[in-house]
């Protein structure tokens, strides 16, 4: 076989290996982004689906149980309120009205979202809120 043929086979093997990693990685570690209203309105129970849910934090609902390192709170879309438990500490900027992004699983029976990762995006971060007179 010519050397150039061997080189091409080598290239194809590497490309195929990377392609395999990407495809298998995508299917095992992906989640659906849904709205809070989807969880309540839809017939689907989303069991075993890794979900990503955006919402606004309800400030009064935050409770931290330090003994068990368990944070409970609710997020809302203005219509529904979704209760969340999260076995970790408060993320930064965890204040009333903060835009919260939940990742985890939804237990429809008990209506609770078991978060594995919670990130916040402060509404005033970087770009300031509308200035005084605007």
């Amino acid at each position, binding site marked *: 076989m010519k*050397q*150039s043929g*061997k*080189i091409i086979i*080598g*290239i194809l093997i*590497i*490309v195929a290996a*990377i392609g395999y*990693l*990407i495809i298998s*990685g*995508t299917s*095992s*570690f*992906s*989640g*659906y*982004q*849904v709205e809070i209203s989807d969880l309540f309105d839809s017939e689907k129970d989303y069991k075993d689906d*890794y979900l*990503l849910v*955006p919402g606004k934090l309800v400030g009064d609902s935050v409770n*931290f149980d*330090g*003994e068990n*390192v368990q944070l409970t709170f609710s997020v809302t879309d203005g219509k529904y309120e979704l209760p969340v438990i999260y076995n*970790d*500490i*408060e993320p*930064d*900027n*965890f*204040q009333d009205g903060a835009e919260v*992004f939940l*990742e985890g699983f939804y237990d429809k029976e008990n209506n609770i979202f078991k978060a594995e*990762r919670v*990130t916040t*995006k*402060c509404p*005033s*971060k*970087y*770009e*300031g809120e509308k*200035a*005084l*007179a*605007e």
Partner: protein
Amino acid sequence: MAQIGYFSLLLAIAVSIYTIAAYIIAIKTDNCRLRASANGGVAAILLLTTIASVVLFYFLATSDFSIKYVYDYTSKNLPILYKLSAFWAGNAGSLLLWAWLLAIYTAVVTFLTRGQEENIPYVNTILVLNNLFFLILLVFIANPFTKIPGGMSPVEGKGLNPMLQNPGMIFHPVTLYLGYVGFAVPYAYAIAALITKKVGDTWIKVTRRWTVIAWLFLSLGNLYGAQWAYVELGWGGFWAWDPVENASFMPWLTGTAFLHSVMIQERKDMLKIWNMALIIITYILTLFGTFLVRSGVLQSVHSFNNSGLGTWFLFFMCLALAVSLYFLTSRINLLKQARQFESYISKESSFLINNLLLVGSAFAILWGTVFPLISEAIRGVRVTVSVPYFNKVNAPILLAMIFVMGVCPLIAWRRSSLKNLLNNFMWPLLLAVISGVALYFYLPGQELYGALAYAINIFVLFTIFQEFYRGMRVRHRATGEAYPLVLIRLMVRNRRRYGGYIIHLGIILIALAVVGTGAYKQEVTQQVSVGEKIVIDDYTLTFNGLRQRLEGENTVVYADISVDKGGTNIGALTPENVFYKTWDQPSSEVAIHGTLAEDLYVALASWKDKGRTATFKVHINPLMSWMWIGGYILVLGTIFALWPGRGSRLGPKYK
């Protein structure tokens, strides 16, 4: 004053348009005077953007809150360094920084590059076109000199986000931008080479220094970002595969690939199309990164609010891509390579593998980053890939890349023999296998992946040491010089080569830190009352209570923790929460006890009962310090490799 800033930007637009037109006409008519005048235009753009930047710095320094940008990002009692660095805290200022840096680079290309007179008009047309885009955004979309409506001048500004009040704020954005903008220069030279159909390796030789410097700044930008995230965000890690982090890592990967594959073109006249494609991709990825940050299309900790800028960047990116692809495909016949690969075990082919892996990793990251957008467009649902995707996919690719990094420099050009391979790799391989097995049994958890990753890094480490040792031995025999002198002369006389090895050494140290924290970190989150202890590995942390102090107008709540290691007291740690007058939420300042072996990392999470009970997050991150040490070695190696004069040139061309 604000008018001066605004009008200099407006004037810079006019000058840019004139400069571009003048260059194009000068090219068509071969008019030397017009060309000189256009060069003057480049100087004028530099002057005007400098004036605008100085004006903005002045407003920030003097806390003139009638300027909206100053009002939005600073407050009176902010330390002066943070007042000034608020320059790039928002959209408008960071665009101005970009335009200013690009103007500086363009001026350097124009006035400090020798022997490139015939290429300058083409290169500068592309660079100034770029800058025109930024200037238009600055004047019409995001003007940093906008006044607060109604002519009011508030007494106090809104303050800088506490997370941005960190030394990282001074270094991270600037180095990253220097890197981003720096890649515009080799890109411009590449396109100029395509336009003029002079696609030899001149453009590569001329831009090598630019490429390496841009690469260095991009590396530094990423490292500073990692360090900042590590000390500021309090979750114990340095990298979260956030879309914006990915956006700065992707051009680094393709830029690294470019840096290596141009060596093959320099030496063997191969991979010409590939090199063109790589620099185009790298440049487009820098724009793509900016697009991601500005558009808010993805969830990210970095997102600036959507200010309509995203669409502009998308438009400009597509334009640049279309133009680049047009020139690349229309000149493709000129780029066909004369030479074939002679053997699949050779230096050439190992470079090819290195390139495939780097680009493959960049593609995997791109795929993961834009997957939500693709899936939404195709299937109507947003499917997002999570952090494990990036780790699981990139770990094998980047480990393979590191392995190739050990093989690549030592393997022979053209064709390598079994004898050559054995001769070069037997000892490093043997030592790596032994240490890998030893580490597997010695380290906790018996992580196969971790031990393998360590072994691969150790293999590369030994190949580097072996190269130094052999070079020294040969030179010592030939010259009879003493060993320390041999080392110095050997390195100084082959700066590109040994600079490269030093950079590789830096990368390996960084990789060791990534493996250490990735595979062997330990963490515990625990609530303790005064007098109680947290035990992690052989550390014992005793909580002595919460205290409070005033720092300027900020209130600092800190925990007093005494730390024992293996029974001996090694000092106190004080993780803090800082409450800012101008900000609702406190910011967490972690406490780190760092040694070369590991970092003990403590963050204060929350407290109750007036501070008698508090919750802490404690991490042990093995080898973490080596990430920063590796970073400094990388800088040293790059400066060493670039140092001009005798010994800085490439060896003879190998045909």
